[in-house]
């Protein structure tokens, strides 16, 4: 019922955006999308809470090509997650796109068609994301997965007017399709053993597969879905595509679409394949750790606000896959109770990341709309001109830095506890590996805090570093409302974390071998793991913090002097302060750049021009430092070198003649028929 309402609302959104002139059509289209998001969240929540899957089938005469929707608790959970991102993004979009100043709003008012197609594509993108999690067979899943990739690709490329957008499009198209091929191969191999490719049939059939086939399918699923989630070494498209897309689309992509990489991984590896040997999980865990550290280090050094957020998404998806990988390890070691704990951490963090990353991208969009730039070094002082955006972004920054009592802390705490639980599971070597993972997780947390002090502090605090920042204006009311929704979610999910944890645990019931009732966590007023190995009560912590702050404020108010004077910033006797004296984003990150210099390999140029008379007088100093994302660039270069000769030889069979292509199709069909007959 709600599922159909959601589909109808999204479809109506697409039609409205296409049919009405953009100036009048944006708000009705947004209203449709917001309605669809609410309906989807309700549908998803109902399935999670009741545990009863809902389904709907559009039969087809061809075997395996029926459209089958079946929403189970795991899909319902992700449908709620998508709704949480879509609702604010839909409210945000109309005013954001109407502004002429936003340089990244390629689908905005200054596009050739006024943004009609982009509006419709956004609706279709959301629709296909929602259908991915509701897909009940291989055909539906692959169709929607590809629809999601193509719509988002077109939104990233936009009008293709700049080299940045075209380059982002090439990266994204390459990665998305390489991933799609792996996923398609994996799912089709699974479907080959059933008649219609329905997930329900595959579940039973997959246990009969040989070890080699299962391992190959796992690797295809890991790298296929990992390319969507931005796991290292498949992360290169993320820092290119997110900045190029309009900010509400970035919010949708980073907040919702990346999580579908996790959804697909869980669906195929946990549900359809039913788990596997411990090394599967170990590999996912290792990739997660590497992605987390990689993402946060490059985020820390980035000076482009939206690229910084994209790198931070790599970090967070890394944390999410750490949880999922750990769950697989525990399952492989026969500890289903601990696997449930690790998966709870993973899903919880996925939901939290949807809330704060959606919020941060919308905050960044507001800043970009107001200043016309994404360069941190041109910003500053925006907190005074854009107080609402600043306050919401601050909540997001604190949540993503995992500061209590906000939501990021609750899920990172669960992840810490899951890693610590790994000590007794396998031999001493594994215990040391767990200890190193705990260290890596903590380092990620600390670096994320440094990164978001930089991102928020340089953007919003101190004096404006440029004219655009000095003249920035606050966003319109709807955009502010849109940012308040995920900001409230960050606070509520943090304080009411145990209640939401129960909801998340109910979603785990979809995985057949996970039994949440025997899981090694308890959720009452607080989180408790492993019979009191660790326990927190986030609401009590929030009260404790608020109470301490209120007591301090009251005591100071009563007892201390109330005199206050506004003066100049102290400056060792210099007259007047300018923004040139402020710390910059590059300077802020410099100590950590030096500490991790061996990994990041920065290049530095220092040119000093001396006075001709004496070397003691300097005319000018030039200092340039550049950090190249060498892993992505070198890897892409290697692949390009490998593929170029192949592409050249592929040209031999291309003639442009339609007859010839029809002959190819015929030959291929014949070959497959013969092959099928022979096998």
């Amino acid at each position, binding site marked *: 019922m709600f599922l159909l309402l959601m589909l109808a609302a999204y479809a109506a959104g697409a039609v409205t955006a296409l049919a009405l002139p953009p100036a009048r059509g944006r708000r009705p289209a947004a209203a449709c999308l917001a309605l669809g998001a609410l309906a989807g969240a309700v549908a998803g929540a109902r399935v999670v809470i009741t545990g009863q899957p809902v389904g709907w089938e559009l039969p087809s005469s061809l075997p395996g090509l029926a459209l089958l929707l079946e929403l189970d608790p795991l899909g319902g959970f992700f449908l709620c997650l998508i709704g949480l991102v879509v609702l604010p993004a839909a409210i945000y979009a109309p005013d954001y796109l109407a502004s002429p100043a936003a340089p990244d709003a390629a689908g905005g008012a200054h596009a050739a068609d006024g943004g009609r197609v982009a509006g419709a594509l956004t609706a279709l993108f959301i629709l296909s994301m929602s259908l991915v999690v509701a897909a009940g067979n291989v055909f539906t899943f692959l169709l929607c997965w590809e629809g999601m990739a193509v719509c988002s690709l077109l939104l990233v490329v936009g009008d293709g007017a700049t080299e940045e957008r075209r380059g982002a499009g090439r990266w994204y198209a390459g990665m998305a399709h390489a991933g799609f091929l792996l996923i398609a191969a994996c799912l089709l191999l699974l479907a080959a053993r059933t008649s219609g490719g329905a997930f329900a049939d595959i579940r039973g059939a997959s246990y009969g597969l040989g070890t080699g086939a299962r391992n190959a399918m796992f690797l295809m699923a890991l790298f296929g879905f990992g390319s969507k989630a931005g796991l290292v070494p498949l992360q290169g498209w993320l820092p290119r595509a997110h900045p190029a897309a309009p900010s509400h689309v970035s919010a949708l992509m980073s907040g919702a679409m990346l999580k579908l990489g996790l959804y697909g991984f869980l669906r195929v590896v946990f549900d359809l394949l039913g788990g596997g040997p411990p090394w599967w999980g170990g590999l996912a865990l290792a990739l997660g750790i590497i992605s987390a550290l990689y993402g946060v280090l490059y985020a820390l050094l980035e000076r482009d606000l939206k690229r910084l957020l994209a790198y931070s998404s790599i970090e967070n998806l890394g944390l999410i896959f750490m949880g999922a990988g750990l769950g697989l390890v525990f399952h492989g070691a026969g500890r289903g109770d601990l696997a449930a704990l690790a998966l709870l951490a993973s899903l919880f963090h996925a939901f939290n990341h949807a809330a704060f990353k959606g919020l941060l991208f919308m905050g960044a969009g507001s800043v970009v709309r107001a200043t016309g730039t994404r360069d941190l070094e041109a910003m500053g002082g925006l907190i005074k001109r854009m107080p609402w955006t600043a306050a919401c972004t601050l909540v997001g920054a604190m949540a993503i830095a995992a500061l209590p009592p906000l939501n990021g802390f609750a899920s990172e705490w669960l992840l810490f506890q899951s890693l610590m639980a790994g000590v007794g599971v396998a031999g*001493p070597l594994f215990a040391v590996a767990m200890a190193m993972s705990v260290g890596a997780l903590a380092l990620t947390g600390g670096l994320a805090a440094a990164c978001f002090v930089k991102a928020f502090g340089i953007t919003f605090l101190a004096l404006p570093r440029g004219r655009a920042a000095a003249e920035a204006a606050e966003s319109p009311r709807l955009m502010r409302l849109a940012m308040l929704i995920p900001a409230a979610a960050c606070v509520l999910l943090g304080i009411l974390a145990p209640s939401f944890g129960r909801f998340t645990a109910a979603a785990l019931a979809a995985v057949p071998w996970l039994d949440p009732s025997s899981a090694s966590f308890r959720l009452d007023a607080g989180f408790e793991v492993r019979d009191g190995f*660790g326990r927190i009560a986030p609401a009590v912590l929030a009260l404790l913090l608020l109470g301490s702050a209120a*007591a*301090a404020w009251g005591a*100071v108010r009563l007892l*201390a002097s109330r*005199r206050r004077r506004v003066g100049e*910033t102290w400056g060792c006797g210099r007259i007047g302060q300018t923004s040139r004296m402020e710390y910059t984003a590059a300077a802020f990150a410099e100590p950590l750049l030096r500490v991790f210099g061996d990994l990041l390999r920065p290049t530095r140029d220092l040119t000093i021009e001396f006075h001709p008379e004496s070397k003691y007088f300097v005319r000018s100093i030039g200092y340039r430092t550049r950090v190249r994302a060498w892993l992505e660039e070198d890897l892409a270069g290697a692949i390009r070198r490998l593929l170029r000769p192949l592409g050249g030889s592929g040209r031999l069979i291309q003639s442009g003649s339609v007859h010839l292509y029809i002959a190819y199709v015929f030959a291929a069909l014949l070959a497959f028929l013969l092959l099928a007959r022979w096998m």
Partner: protein
Amino acid sequence: MIGAGGGATGLGAILVEVLQGLLALLLAPGIVGLVRFIKARLQGRRGAPPWQPYRELAKLFGKEMVVSRNASWIFGVAPYVVFASTLAVALLVPMLAAPLPIDRAGDLIVVVYLLLLGTFAIGLAGLDPGSAFGGMGSSRALTIAALAEPTIALAVFALAVPAGSTNLGRIVARAIEDPGGALSPGHLMALAALFIVMLAEAGRLPVDNPATHLELTMIHEAMILEYSGRSLALLEWAAFLKFFVFLSLLANLGLPWGVALNPGASAVLVAAAILIVKVALLAAAVAVLETRLAKLRLFRVPELLSVSFLLALLAITSSFLVE
């Protein structure tokens, strides 16, 4: 909301909590004054009396506050966030009795991230007035905090595995019940690691010099350079409190005897007296250490922290082998 958890419940436990908070707040400046006093004597100076910090706080609270015209509301709110998060930590760390019901609200990981909340707030406040000093201070403070984080987490891990809990009250209670465990090599190495990190987190030598006003070496002092009056008083008090909490945490983890296992009035009073003695002894040790050590260059600090990381890793490995 906090159900029956350990040895203590109800009104008595709340009284112990309040007493603990007040004790920490009131004693913290005196302990820092004691460190300064001993250091002065060791360096051949007469030095200010140990109660000098109380006078400084009283003076600052009575003074006018000067706020930069470039600063925003972040600058005004940050001292309260820092103070509140440190006070919350002071309430979570078992000082007088263990385990108290509040122990079930937060564990050692919470303590670590509450301290990070304070660092986050003061780091933003350092950038807010737009002075180069403040930016330099927050950049360095966040660098050190980020690099210290893995070590703290590992030390937490090393303490939690043998005790079977990350909640501090249970760790301390377990150490009292099993004194042999408190002297095991794993526990001692974890404590050594925690001690090194504590020096970094509390801004003591050899990582930061709390007495310096030389811009090349400042970290914490650079961030709070713009503060004056009651805001500065709050920040100073929070820094004293943080130092005190660290010392009592180390004292109660290393030498847990004296912590009351039941919140009876006499037991708690004895515990308070023993705590003061333990913390004063540790403070004297820090004073001796700070007299003997020179400040490290900023880029040598990661080496110190990696030593501490290694100690914590060894602690975990050894606790695993001993099992």
